[in-house]
Structures are given as C-alpha cells and as structure tokens.
C-alpha cells in the first residue's frame, strides 16, 4: 500500500484536511463575485453577526456530539426557552428573571434527555425526537400560537449595541466559543469527554465516569440552547411559534461541517466556528441574491446530506437503531 500509491493518498489526505475550508473560501469568493450586495463591507459583518446565535446553539449540540450522542430536540427546546423569555418580559418581568426561567426550562428538558440517554442507555435519536415533539407541544400550549414580541425594552441593547465597534452579540458568541474551546480541548474534563465519545473502552480503562460526563454534556447543551434561543429572539425582537425548529437543520448541518474540518471526522469545537460562518454566508448570499426563501431550505438540506456523507468514518456497516 506504500510507495506508488502514497502520492495519491497524500492528495486525498490534503483534500480531507483542507477540503471544507477550501470549499468555504470558494463559496465566499463566488458569492462576492456574483453579488455586489454580498461584497459590501458591512455585509461581511452582517454575516458574522447572523452567525452568532446559530453558533452558540451549534456549540450546544456539539458538546453532546463530542460525548458520542445526538440531540434532535434542540429546536423544540429553543422554542420553549425563547417563548418563555419573550412572554415573561412582555408581561413585565425583569429580563434577568425571564432569562433565569428560560435557562431553567432548557436545563430541565436537557436533564430528561440526559437521564434517558446517559443513565437509562436509550438510543439518543429516538429519545431526543420524542422530547422534540413534547417540547413543541409545550411551546404551543404556552404561546397559544401567538408571536411574543419584545419592544422598547432596555434588554435590546444586547443585540443593538457594540463594544469598541464590535457588536455585543459577536463578543458574547466569541466569548462562549473561547470558553467552549478551552473546556473541551484543553481541560481534563473535555479530553475525557472526547475519549468517551471516541472510544468507550479506552474511557473505561481510564476510569472515566462515562454516564456522568454524558449527562453533564446534555446539561451544557441545554444551557447553550437557552442562551442561543434568547439571543436569537432578541435579534428578531420576539419569538415566533416554532421558530426554534427552523434552527434545527442549520445547527445540525454546522455540526457535520464541523466534523469535516481539518479532516478529523470527529466532533470538535473549532469546526463549529467554520460551519456557523459557512451556513450564515449561504443564508446571507441567498438573501442578497434575492433567492426565494425556500431555496435556503433546499440547500440546507443538501448541505446536511453532503456534510454528513463526508463525515462518515466507516462505511462498512449499515447504521441501525435499536428500535425493534
């Protein structure tokens, strides 16, 4: 296998490693070339700002993915958190109190997910889908389908203001990114979670508490969903029914793109940044190009499939769920 074919395998390895970043760069160049609106300076900042809440949410899922599990409930949970936050503020509650309630809700759903997946050992896909349905029902019951607006509230400064020229949202997102990166890639805890997600045997050898760490990652995910959902609703000045569910696909696509970055085929934090920027750029470009909204959905679906396809390590077995 060595010798003659090694030059071909290094070429493939290079593609593997830098393919996503190259694709991202190509995308930006192509969009900039096609649309003059896209390449306006303020637009690039727009892309970054729009990427912020989505990245926070994707960071949340990423914690869970790094522990080797999946979470499809994020859309519904975000919906609950966002509508609670906006609804309570609309009824006159202080933003801090409303935020606390929203975070509590996010953690509560996350805890249920975590208990069933980490401790009871159920399949994460089907469990989190069930919670997705459940939380969507809760959101509908609470908001009764109405949109909950936040207007003229001082809390909006978070999304409107900026520090030293950098929008607050971006600052918050970067701070959370940095914290996530340090936690998952530099601390003992993060490295242990990676071990759990990549090799249960090695983790067991090392005496790592597998169930506890998985549960913890679900909780962290829930926290980030609440944060991301609240920030997102602030940007939209309110919460529209099932708006959280619309974020499910882009968030998942980001996690798959993240896995392909630097050829690791494993969940990682830096990749989330690249993925978030990419999805935001695509969204933005479509808006600038005047593309109909549904094209975004179609492309997002395709991106998910393509990214998922590229991030698969072993194609020999058919993946199956233990539902039978």
């Amino acid at each position, binding site marked *: 296998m060595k010798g003659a074919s090694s030059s071909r395998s290094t070429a493939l390895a290079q593609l593997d490693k830098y393919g996503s970043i190259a694709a991202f760069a190509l995308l930006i160049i192509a969009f900039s070339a096609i649309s003059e609106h896209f390449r306006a300076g303020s637009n690039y900042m727009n892309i970054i700002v729009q990427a912020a809440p989505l990245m926070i949410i994707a960071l949340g899922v990423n914690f869970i993915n790094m522990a080797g599990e999946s979470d499809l409930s994020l859309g519904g949970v975000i919906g609950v958190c966002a509508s609670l936050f906006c609804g309570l503020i609309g009824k006159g509650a202080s933003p801090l109190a409303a935020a606390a309630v929203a975070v509590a809700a996010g953690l509560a759903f996350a805890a249920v997910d975590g208990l069933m997946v980490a401790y009871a050992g159920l399949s994460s896909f089907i469990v989190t889908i069930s919670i997705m349905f459940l939380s969507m029902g809760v959101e509908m019951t609470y908001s009764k389908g109405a949109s909950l607006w936040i207007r003229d509230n001082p809390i909006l400064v978070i999304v409107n203001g900026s520090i030293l020229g950098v929008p607050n949202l971006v600052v918050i997102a970067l701070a959370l990114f940095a914290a996530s990166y340090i936690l998952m890639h530099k601390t003992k805890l993060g490295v242990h979670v990676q071990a759990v997600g990549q090799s249960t045997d090695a983790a067991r050898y090392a*005496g790592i508490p597998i169930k506890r760490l998985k549960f913890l990652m679900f909780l962290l995910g829930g926290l980030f969903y609440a944060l991301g959902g609240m920030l997102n609703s602030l940007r939209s000045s309110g919460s529209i029914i099932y708006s959280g569910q619309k974020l499910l696909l882009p968030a998942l696509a980001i996690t798959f793109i993240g896995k392909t970055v630097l050829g690791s085929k494993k969940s990682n934090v830096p990749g989330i940044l690249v993925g978030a920027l990419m999805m935001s750029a695509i969204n933005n470009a479509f808006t600038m190009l005047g593309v109909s909204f549904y094209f975004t959905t179609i492309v997002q679906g395709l991106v998910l499939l393509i990214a998922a396809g590229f991030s698969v390590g072993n194609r020999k077995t058919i993946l199956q769920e233990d539902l039978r």
Partner: protein
Amino acid sequence: MGNNYLLEFKDICKRFPGVRALSNVSLGIRKGEIHALMGANGAGKSTLIKILARVYSQDGGEILLDGKDISRATTETIRDLGVEFIFQELELVQDFSAAQNILIGVEPTKGLVIDRNRMLREAQAAMDAFMPETVDVSSSVSSLSVAKQQMVCIVRALYRDPKILVLDEPTSRLSATETEALFAAIRRLRRERGITVIYISHRMEDIYAICDRVSILRDGEMVGSYALEELSRQDIVYKMVGEDIASPSRGRVAGARAQEGKPKLSVAGLCLERHLRDVSFDVYPGEVFVLTGSVGSQKTELIESIIGIRKADRGTVRIDGKEVRLQGAGSAKSAGICLVPEDRRRNGVIYDFAVRSNSSLAFLSRWTGALGAISRKREKADTEKMADFLSIKTASVETLVKTLSGGNQQKVVIAKWLLGDSTVYFFDEPTVGIDVKGKSEIYEIIKTLSSQGKAIVVATSDIEEAMRIGDRIAVMFEGGIQGIVDSDEADKQRMTYLAMGGRQ
C-alpha cells in the same frame, strides 16, 4: 509459608456449563521474574488470566498477591493493586496523541487546563525509558503502526507503575526486529524496575528468548513449572501435548481419504498484505481439509479471502478447475460455496428469529411458491426434518434461536446450509464453546457431509480436533502454511511445534 512468590494461584477451579474447566491449578510467580504461561488451545491459559483480571471469578481456590487474598477485587480495582494487562484488543483513542493515551485519566494540569508540555515530557520520558527513539509521543495514534500502538498500550500500563505486567501474545503483530526491541525493553524493565512479567504465548522462540520460567497447562490442569534452562523444546511440546503419542488416528472419525480425481477447490498463491503470504492448497471432493494454527495464524482471514469477504492482493481460487472471483457470501452461495462462520452469535444466527426462519434463510426460494408466498407448511416440514437429522434439541422449530444452547445454535447454522445444494463447505472454529457431546455430534455431521462427496475445509485452533476430523491438515503460522500433513502420519507434537513457528 516461606516462599517468595509475588503472585500465587492456589487450587483454582473453574467450571463452565459442560465445557473445559480449571481443576486445582496452583502456580506461583516469583518477584522480578519473566514467567511464561503455556498450553495448547483450550488448556485453560486464557481462563486463568481472565480470572486474574476478574472478568471471571473462580469457583474454588484463592489468588494471593504479596500474601494477601485478592479474590474480592474487581476489574477496576485489580489495577489499583498493581496488576496491568495488555490484551490483543488495543483500547486506544485513535485520534489522540500517544502522549494523551499514555496519560489518559491522569493528565497533569496547570490550573484549569492540561499542562500539555509536561504531559508530552512525561510521556516521552516513559516511552523512551521503555523503548528509546521509537515513538514520538506527540504523533497521533492512528498514524502509528500496530506494533507501535501496542508499545503505547504497554507504556500506558507502565506509567501506572504496576508490580505485575501480563502480556497476552504481545508479539503476534510484530516483525522480528520489533520483537527483539520489545524483548530488550522488557529485560531493561526487569533490571531497572524489578517488574514481574507474566508472558502468554504459543511461540517457542519467544519463550526461550525472554522468559525465565514456564508453567504449562494441559486440559485445565497444571503440568508443572520449570526453569527454561532445564527444559528442551521437545520437553515443552511433550508436556503440553501429553503422554499419548501413540496412535495419532485414535478417535479419528474416518480413515484418511486418498485424493481421487481432480480437486474441487484449488487455491494458488493467495496473498494479502499483512495477513497472508502465498497460500496454496487443494481440496478434493469428499475430503475434510483442516486449517490449524494458533492466534495470529490468519485462518479466518484466509477463508474470508477465498470467499471474497476480503479482497486478496494476488492469487487465484478455482472451483472444478475454473477460476472464480468471489465477492462475498452471496456470490459464493451461487458458486456452491458456503461458510459456517466464526462467532455464531454475531455472524451465524439471528437471535430473534425462530429455528425455522434461521434455517430457511439462505435458500428461501426453495419454499417460495409461484405467487411469491412462502409455503410455511413445506418450510416447517423441511426444517423439522433437518432439525431431526442434526439432532437439534428444541421443542419445535418455532422456538427462538436465542433460547438454544451454543451447540444447538451452531447446528442451526449448519442446517441453514445443508438445506441447500452447496458442494464446498467452510467451517470456521465450529465447535468453540460447545460441550464434548455437541462436538462429537458436529464431527459426525462433517463426516456425513464428506461421505456425500462434499469438499470441506475446517479451521480450528485445536490440534486434537484437527487430527480427529481431518484427512489432511495444513498447519498455519502467521499467514503462511508451514506444512500439509496426512492425518495418518500426523504427530501431535510435530504439529504443535509447527504451529508455534518451528521449522519443518
């Protein structure tokens, strides 16, 4: 007491339902020695080590470490007591660096974050102490060869400063130079750290190169512990195999067949990088051809390469003289070849299916009518007849296979292929985990098949079994055939020697 044993097994007994046990095994390992554990397949070596690793608990007897009874230890706590195991399965995190794997769970920290520099330094120091200038611990484990990955496993264990290191077939994946380097490292370990090593292997040359004393097990009993300098290779084989060198055909199922006519199956020059080197043999109709050899001999890989589950790099496979390119069980089935695979639980039977539906799975079209419906009546009748023929112990063919014993499950797998019209049968370790009665029933089935003119290949690591059912026996070692022996002339000692890498 007065003996200086660091680790002592006293009268260890272990029973499995109907299968080989350990009977009153007592042996002592002295501090600082490199102690070999040897025995034929099924003699009980791995059971004994699994009892030490607390994967099993013994039925009787005790284990003493430094004079203290450690029978209440668990798989986790046994390592706290200073016993580390290096098994065949490398449980490493592939995408981590070697350093991260070595210090996994005990990473040094600077404040909240991992002190990466210190981790690299300590890991490299540990690695260099074991084998200098071999592995750069900052490299990712997935980029390392299997041999080097094994080094990482060993250093990982050594980092925890064990009193006893148990090595299970450590050189099965190593080249000659790598083996030499490993031995040099082990000798240094013993010199500098006074560590005690239990070394399990079937390779004669290894044992003589590195070990001080050897304990030999046979049929679940201790034959004895000896200093290697007082024992010849012949002595070892003799003790592993037993007194009865007479009558190699004793208990043989049938006389060896003369090779009549043309070969049914012809394998020539089969090569697979890192697995097979130039394997060639012929199997005649009605012949039972046995592949035997120990761990690492690549018997299963050979079968998989013939059937096409693995793609060989070079070589040809011929059926009735015509070359075939098989691509797996499906295409093999069409060519009249079938496989009763290793690990029946994973590969052989479908646990949630009944005996009937398991048996009919390979040739379902036989019971499918013109309208596309399966005739359950005919299916049931035929599978019942087959179950009867094979003496499958079950109340009815409707019972789920998961409730059957291992031997009966294996018979269901055989039934599945007998219900078809295959002409070449492959059996991979067909009697593993099956009691004596079940084994002889399967031997009878194989004998019947051969009398029907089928060409049969059986892979087994049990040399006695090989001699019992084979007409000709090919002894394999590390992917190559050491020699092909007529069963009439087969000598257990000679074959054991060949299987251990000895030269013809």
